[in-house]
């Protein structure tokens, strides 16, 4: 894979938004950990599907276009509005695992705004669902006040033009 470090070195930092994921319900009966067989599941955000039977069908088209279930959409609605600035990224704030994600973290840090990050490498289900949720094929994905702001290029551009500073200032004041 590209710009991904050793998966075993990922640490999950409990955060309010991750608690949101965990709070959704019980561990699903289907195996979400297929992609990361060597890693423990308990720390991962979990999702419950109303009907596990229908999940097996869904799992078949996992990679195609059925990743965004209504449940996941609801959860994401809550997550993106749980903080003024939310960054879905590869790795964590302190240990970005992709150059593009790192760039956005550094920009946000330099602007001194509080922001929450969610590591999409921790959960393949979340990762695929988010692509649909944001209609955006890549990561990082930056959300400001519940609205999709852009990926790395757009954030860099907006930072250079001063638009990002404006948007963030407005968000912090509201």
């Amino acid at each position, binding site marked *: *894979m*590209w*710009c991904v470090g050793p998966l075993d070195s990922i640490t999950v930092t409990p955060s309010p938004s991750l608690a949101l994921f965990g709070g959704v319900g019980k561990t699903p009966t289907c195996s979400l950990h297929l992609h990361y067989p060597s890693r423990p599941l308990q720390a991962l955000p979990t999702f419950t599907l109303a009907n596990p039977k229908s999940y097996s069908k869904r799992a078949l088209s996992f990679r195609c276009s059925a990743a965004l279930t209504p449940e996941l959409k609801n959860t994401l609605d809550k997550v993106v509005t749980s903080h003024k600035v939310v960054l879905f990224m590869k790795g964590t704030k302190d240990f970005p695992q992709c150059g*593009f994600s790192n760039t956005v973290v550094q920009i946000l840090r330099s602007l001194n705004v509080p922001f929450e990050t969610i590591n999409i490498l921790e959960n393949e289900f979340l990762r695929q669902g988010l692509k649909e949720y944001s*209609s*955006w*094929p*890549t990561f990082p994905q930056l959300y400001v006040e519940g609205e*999709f*702001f*852009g*990926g*790395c*290029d*757009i954030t860099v*551009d*907006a930072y250079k033009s001063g638009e990002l500073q404006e948007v963030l200032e407005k968000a912090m004041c509201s």
Partner: protein
Amino acid sequence: MGVTKEQVEASLTSKLNPSHLEVVDTSGGCGASFVIEIVSQQFEGKRLLERHRVVNSALEEEMKEIHALSIKKALTPEQWKKQQEAEKPKPAA
């Protein structure tokens, strides 16, 4: 496996009819990473986020294989012209 620069160019050309297009394969050969500069009339009246969405959806098929797509420029022909003129070295006085 992977996508070629030509495939990316062909898709963008047929869908967005660009007046300027530059695709650089930055993957080092595996075809998973590209940098794009594109000028198209179709960007008129769209803000940057929407322009990127237009490019992303034009490359929907390719994006399944591409992992990093960097859109360096997504301009309208008018913006492009202005930029070109601004970059042109001034004739010596």
